[in-house]
């Protein structure tokens, strides 16, 4: 059954071609489809002025032709793809988060590659990078290689208050993908509750550092992880656990951070700085956070290091980390055993600078090398996206 994509409500379609409304053939991992997606990567990497946006470059790099060829080889070899080809494409509705500007495209393009037609909802509060990406997509879809992509990808923009629109798009799709947070997931799950869905709820991530290697390089890698998306991605490190690291070495790390910051692109502004001050107070009021090594001569303050803020605390709890709202505040605490990191359902990535630690870690959904925290992976938050997208009907509906 096809559903009309016409709305009375105020829905903008920053990207939707006429052809999108027609049922499309399932071209899962077929050459022309892989080329159409890889072409977008090439299109971005050709434009020198985009070099200043590391988030966009990272996305383009992930979808580079060589990487897609490798994924294609793995997928085509599996027996799941062949029976789908030539059938009608599945339909996936992605609800993108407002805080992490590029994640919606990873998820949507992977789903395109798996043979689905996709509608991505962006919020009117979405950031500049999202808007830039949508403009780039629009341009690319007008090119000869891009045309095919437009049959499989559309972008809608509307306010979340228009629940009718969410309901209609949910009826249109075979699978709904919701990128957090918890409240949004709860609210959206109420709309057309029988819709099959995968969800990515609120998560937090931490760094576990031993500073056994070059400190300057480690500092640079830490900035790569902490600065994008104003530290609000679920893989952004909210805190550093120093594993038996002497104070002088930690100071050295922060001096390096301070020296590297002026040349590190970030979007942190004066308002993020004010949010850092407020966050420390909120963590104290709500979760009893206590500063370590305090002189008592002034009230509790963060230490400002350029646009970042840091403070050493006596103890970190999961509740504090889950309540951390980003904005560039790095909490830190000293530990002498990895067991001091509390396990929690919401702990996603443990970012490490010493590969040997991954063997002793039993917390978190993944451990990742410092500098790679935000690198996308087809297994995300414990869910294999390729499997989810290859056969959209294989996911259990919530009531089955």
């Amino acid at each position, binding site marked *: 059954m096809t559903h009309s994509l016409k709305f009375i409500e105020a829905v903008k379609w920053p990207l939707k071609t006429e052809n999108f409304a027609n049922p499309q053939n399932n071209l899962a991992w077929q050459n022309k489809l892989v080329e159409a997606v890889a072409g977008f990567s090439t299109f971005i990497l050709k434009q020198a002025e985009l070099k200043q946006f590391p988030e966009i470059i990272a996305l383009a790099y992930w979808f580079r032709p060589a990487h897609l060829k490798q994924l294609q080889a793995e997928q085509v070899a599996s027996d799941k793809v062949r029976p789908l080809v030539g059938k009608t494409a599945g339909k996936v509705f992605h609800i993108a988060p407002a805080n992490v500007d590029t994640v919606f495209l990873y998820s949507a393009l992977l789903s395109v590659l798996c043979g689905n037609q996709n509608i991505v909802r962006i919020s009117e509060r979405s950031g500049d990078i999202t808007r830039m990406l949508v403009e780039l997509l629009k341009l690319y879809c007008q090119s000869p290689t891009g045309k095919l992509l437009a049959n499989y990808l559309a972008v809608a923009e509307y306010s979340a208050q228009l629940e009718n629109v969410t309901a209609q798009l949910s009826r249109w799709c075979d699978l709904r993908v919701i*990128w957090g*947070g918890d409240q949004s997931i709860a609210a959206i799950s109420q709309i057309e509750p029988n819709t099959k869905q995968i969800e990515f709820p609120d998560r937090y991530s931490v760094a576990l550092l031993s500073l056994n290697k070059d400190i300057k390089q480690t500092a640079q890698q830490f900035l790569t992880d902490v600065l994008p998306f104003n530290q609000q991605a679920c893989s952004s490190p909210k805190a550093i656990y120093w594993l038996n690291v002497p104070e002088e070495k930690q100071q050295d790390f922060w001096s390096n951070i301070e020296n590297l910051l002026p040349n590190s692109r970030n979007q942190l502004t004066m308002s993020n700085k004010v949010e850092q001050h407020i966050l420390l107070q909120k963590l104290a009021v709500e979760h009893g956070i206590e500063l370590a090594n305090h002189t*008592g001569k002034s009230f509790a303050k963060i230490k400002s290091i350029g646009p970042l803020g840091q403070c050493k605390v006596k103890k970190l709890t999961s509740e504090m980390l889950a309540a951390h709202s980003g904005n560039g505040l790095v909490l830190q605490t000293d530990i002498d055993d990895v067991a001091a990191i509390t396990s929690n359902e919401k702990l996603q990535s443990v970012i490490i600078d010493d590969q040997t630690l991954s063997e002793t870690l039993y917390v978190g959904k993944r451990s990742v090398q410092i500098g790679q925290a935000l690198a996308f992976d087809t297994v995300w938050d414990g869910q294999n996206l390729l499997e989810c997208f290859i056969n959209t009907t294989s996911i259990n509906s919530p009531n089955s």
Partner: protein
Amino acid sequence: MQIDDYNNAAVFSQFPVYGLNSVQKQAFLQQRLNWLTHHHAAHCPEYARLLTCIGEANSPMCNIEHIEQVPPVAARLFKDYGLKSIKDDEVFRLMRSSGTSGRQSQIYLDADSAKLQSQILVKTLQHWLGKQRRPMLIIDAKETMQNKNGMSARAAGLQGMSFFGRNHCYALDENMQLRIDEVKSFIERYHNQQIFIFGFTFIVWQQFIQALQSLGLKFNLQQAILIHGGGWKKMQQQAVDDKTFKQQINAQLGDVSVHDYYGMVEQTGTIYMQCEHGHLHCPVWSDVVVRDINSLAQLKNGQQGLLQVNSALPTSYPGHSILTEDLAVIHGEDDCPCGRLGKYFTLHGRVPNSQVRGCSDTFS
């Protein structure tokens, strides 16, 4: 005058509004603010945790030596937590901020705080308006006051101010349009008396002054006074500054002395009135500090930063020292050419709000 009678509201509420110099003020406020810090630490667990955040159970922040060291609470915390130092059954009034977007501040008052706040407000305004009640023109609608969901800051402001007038005339109807006949007959009747006009800055400008201009109506008031407040954000969007605002008011209404004021629902009763020289003045019950946005270190006079407002009044909630998100410059203390004692300052807008609040919020 007993300056060390810091804990006796009946005494300190009688202090001259702009009459203590920095040394006398320090003597009074240092003791008063320390007492308040102790009091709130003992009665408001959230506030106590904020003090022990520096890692000492008996926080040295309870015993500061200078009033500028008192630990401030971020204004935002009053939006997120019901901070109060009284029991639930002692709540006499719940005040809310007028925020149109996002969450509102919630300020809990018991009978004593409510009384003290209004006493101090009266004292402060009498300094500017005199003790005689004046015929009062309110640039708002009567309907604004009738909000059933607790009292809005705008309604609280109108209600508080209407006390200083008599024979009130509301200049606007329920649609915020000019009630021209009522305004005309009010001004005809009282034109040779000292009329008191009150309204919120942007409403005065757009719904009153501009409406009069488009009707080509001018009046010739004598020794009238206009008090207005509520912020300059919308005025700046229309590129109207303090000077233009005053000029247009005088052009339209005649001899009116115009005074902006600054205040917030988190410290109702403590207001900062603008003097003839364009400076906002701390009354004797208040002191301000400007802090560096990055380090929160105290800045010197003339430097712009985040404004911290300290007040001797709040006993029912821990609001005696608040770090606002407003930017300000302190120009001096005790030496404003207007002759009033205390610190004086100007405001320079707000820190712009960050667009995305918490983590991955797709649902708004």
